[in-house]
């Protein structure tokens, strides 16, 4: 009888341990850890190119996380990416002329939305849109520009964009 009891207690502990491990994995080692369940408000931003930006990527000011990417869509009229950002309620003092840009953490790291605070006395309200945005830096573009500028070709930089872009997809295929 006592033997039987100890099995049951032991099995219970084992199951608890398993679920504790699962909870640990799920909450401490995944994006859930960055996911504050607190109140948030929504801001919008349009980018000509979001690059590798993913859902739930962090939104940061000065390297500090203030929210996350909630949705990424194509604006059918402008044919631009429209990104919805969920910003924590406690960061509601963002000047409405702040700008948003897509950065890459490190050379190969994930992309995030960086916010550069502006100087306006008015603050963003729920549903507002960033006026100033800067798209993701495309590595291919950079390399293309570098190649064109580095070459003796006298062509101006703006046409460099056009001439550098076509080879890029080719290289990938």
């Amino acid at each position, binding site marked *: 009888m006592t033997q039987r009891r100890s099995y049951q207690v032991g*099995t219970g502990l*084992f199951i608890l*341990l398993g679920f504790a*491990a699962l909870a640990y994995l799920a909450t*401490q*080692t*995944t*994006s859930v850890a960055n996911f504050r369940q607190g109140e948030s408000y929504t801001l919008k931003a349009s980018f000509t190119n979001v690059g590798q930006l993913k859902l739930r990527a962090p939104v940061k000011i000065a390297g500090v996380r203030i929210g996350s990417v909630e949705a990424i869509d194509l604006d059918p009229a402008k044919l631009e990416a429209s990104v919805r950002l969920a910003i924590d309620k406690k960061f509601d003092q963002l000047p409405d002329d702040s700008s948003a840009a897509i950065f890459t953490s490190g050379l190969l*790291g994930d992309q995030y939305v960086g916010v550069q605070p502006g100087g306006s006395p008015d603050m963003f309200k729920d549903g507002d849109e960033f006026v100033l945005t800067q798209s993701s830096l495309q590595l291919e573009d950079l390399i293309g520009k570098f190649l064109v500028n580095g070459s003796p070709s006298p062509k101006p930089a703006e046409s460099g964009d056009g001439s550098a872009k076509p080879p890029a997809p080719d290289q990938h295929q």
Partner: protein
Amino acid sequence: MSARPTSRLGDALAQVGACGLFLLQVLGAVPKSLRHFRETIRQIWFVGAMSLVIIMTCGLFVGAVLGLQLYDVLSRFGASAMSGTVVALALYRELGPVVTALLFAGRAGTSITAEIGLMRATDQLAAMEMMAVDPLAYVAAPRFIAGVVALPLLACVFNAMAILGAHAVCVSWLGLDGGTFWSNMTASVDVWTDVVNGVWKSVAFGAVCTLIATFNGYTTAPTSEGVAYATTRTVVFSSIATLALDFVMTAFLT
């Protein structure tokens, strides 16, 4: 009687078919086995809790060696910061469920087969039938349920230990910044596509491994050689089935 090579394929197919039928029988016996719930608890203890030590030890070492290798390789690309991320992704998606299932087949699967095989050889299964106790409900189903429940939990423990092992190597030993290790991991690992899909995999592996172990025990030839042979087959077939199923599930889940 059918030792000709042409019939080998037929034999194999017949085995797979018999195993499938056995699965249906076991599933059919699951509701009845709830009457013997204590037996299920006991089996979770034997199959799961008793495997903890080997699973935790192996998890720690697998994590440590992954950390070591990936830190070294990624440093060559200046991306050592991603060590934690890659370790976690490799573990959650593949290594955790697969390695745990292989260890499980060796540790728990063999003991299930040997135990049931011996019960068959010594007429204990027949004795149960004569006492109007269905061995499918009393012997097979509790072990099957135990495997399905225990393997995902073991895989989670394995993964957690491996993460700690990788952290110990990368951060404490090789000097990677702890904040970088965690923040890169949390930025790229997704609960649903990585952690939960891995758990689903190990649920499937648990079902397959215990099914094969129980089936081999149940159909053991009632001899010492029969039990030995059945035990070997459990390890071989469980491993093959796990790896093949892993490929299929990876192809369909992601």
